[in-house]
């Protein structure tokens, strides 16, 4: 009899262990497969380029791209050190992003809360949103010159609209019960806006922040590409001008790393800010 009572305990433990090991193996498998896909892709590209299946002059090859990156890291670029170029682009993108986000959130919430403003400005916002904003970059170049200001401006117009629309929607769709409850509990209109509408809209706003930082980078890069004295976009333009395909790819790779890094920072900030949300709520939609 004692054997029987003890028996269920032992397999239960081993079963958990087995499950844990299986989960760990699965994770390793996924990471391994990911690495294998990348290695296969780069390997195939390299082999095709070396054997002449594709023209390395047009399509470049991983080893040349890596050599280009390494050269930039160790010897700097034609416009100065690589860090300086990244710093320039990031500075432009971040400034434009912050300005666009602040403007978008403030106006979005204001128009979402005040019916009169929404009715007056609604059509104008729609018209401005209909303009393909990337064509404004040359105009900004004329207005603000070759310096960072023109890039910041194109980043701002790209960032503003998605953030604005999400903040507007978020402010409009606040649970009416929450607003009624706050008013009964004694909140005036200002407190309802700041302590109910703004927190309720943050989920909406944050979903737009992810996308909009990508837009800010696009704005900065396109601005630099059209005309600049520093920055990653200028490096792309310079490499293209000298038919240096490896240079274009290398600048792209650096851009991707920068974008992924900032994306990671945003996700981290979001997790801190949304501790009040259930963990399985996904992206909050």
């Amino acid at each position, binding site marked *: 009899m004692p054997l029987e009572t003890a028996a269920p305990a032992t397999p239960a433990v081993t079963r958990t262990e087995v499950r844990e090991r299986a989960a760990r193996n699965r994770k390793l498998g996924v990471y391994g497969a990911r690495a294998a896909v990348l290695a296969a892709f780069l390997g195939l590209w390299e082999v095709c380029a070396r054997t002449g299946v594709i023209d390395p002059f047009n399509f470049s090859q991983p080893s040349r791209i890596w050599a280009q990156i390494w050269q930039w890291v160790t010897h700097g670029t034609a416009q100065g050190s690589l860090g300086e170029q990244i710093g320039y682009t990031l500075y432009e993108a971040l400034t434009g992003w912050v300005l666009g986000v602040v403007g978008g959130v403030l106006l979005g919430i204001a128009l979402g809360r005040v019916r009169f403003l929404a009715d007056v400005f609604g059509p104008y916002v729609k018209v401005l949103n209909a303009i393909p904003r990337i064509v404004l970059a040359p105009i900004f170049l004329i207005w603000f010159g070759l310096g960072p200001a023109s890039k910041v401006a194109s980043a701002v117009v790209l960032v503003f609209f998605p953030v604005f629309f999400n903040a507007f929607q978020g402010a409009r769709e606040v*649970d009416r*019960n*929450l607003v*009624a*409850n*706050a*008013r*009964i*509990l*004694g*909140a*005036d209109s200002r*407190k309802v806006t700041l*302590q*109910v509408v703004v*927190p*309720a809209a*943050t989920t909406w706003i944050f979903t737009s922040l992810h996308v909009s930082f990508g837009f800010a980078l696009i704005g900065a890069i396109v601005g630099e590409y059209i005309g600049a004295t520093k920055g990653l976009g200028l490096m792309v333009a310079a490499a293209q001008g000298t038919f240096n395909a490896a240079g274009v790819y290398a600048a792209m790779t650096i851009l991707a790393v920068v974008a992924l890094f900032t994306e990671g920072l945003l996700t981290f900030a979001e997790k801190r800010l949304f*501790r*009040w*949300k*259930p963990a399985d709520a996904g992206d909050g939609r």
Partner: protein
Amino acid sequence: MVHVDPHEAGAVPAIELTGATKRFRTPSGTLHTAVRELDLTVAPGEFVAVVGPTGCGKSTTLTLVSGLEEPTEGEVRVYGEPVSGINGHVGFVFQQDAVFPWRTVLSNVMAGPRFRGVPADRAREKARDWLSRVGLSAFEDRYPHQLSGGMRKRVALAQTFVNDPRILLMDEPFSALDVQTRALMSDQLLELWAGTGSSVVFVTHDLDEAIALADRVVVMTAGPATVKEVFTVDLPRPRTVEAVRLEPRFVELYREIWASLGEEVRITRERGAGRAA
């Protein structure tokens, strides 16, 4: 606001609706009358339950008293003064979850006093006191999504009671809870209310709940709502919901009130069937 001493209490009702009518414009442009010619008086310290068929306009009555909505016609008075805008003496417990999901339990209960300009220390003290009365002291750092439905409702009760409301409006507050939790919450509500001397208007579709809790049960007609009949519940207090249900007088009252309410429920259902056909 006016101060009401016990002698005056009989003279000035806590809530007085006279000929109150509320019409809404529906999205299709037609006028919908939710409440029609409603007369209702609630004395200070009285617990009134309002029962009626689904969708007859019971909730609208509460929003009129709270000041969230204004009557189209007629008058609503609270302690003798006409209602215009939100009244600071009114507490409202909503049917759906209305606690702020981004605030912790403690912060939720502190919200009312903080909105009203009470210093943080004092507000925290009051909030902790009410949290202990609803038995949630151990959960003050949790967020609402980490609590069960019943616990969230207790947060909502504490959030309302912490403002010391003289009038408590409750819109089917326990309808989303399971039967056992509902009985426990009803007992807890009676306990919390007993100490305050506030007047309660409790809207429900559950006649059991209405009789067990209230001093008077108001039966509404099928929409547009108006008062059909008022019944006095002469069961002794203090009551506990589970015990009071077994008393013969409870069953008698239930039968009497249901005779009146059942008719309205039938009318509502026939209308619904007519619309569906």
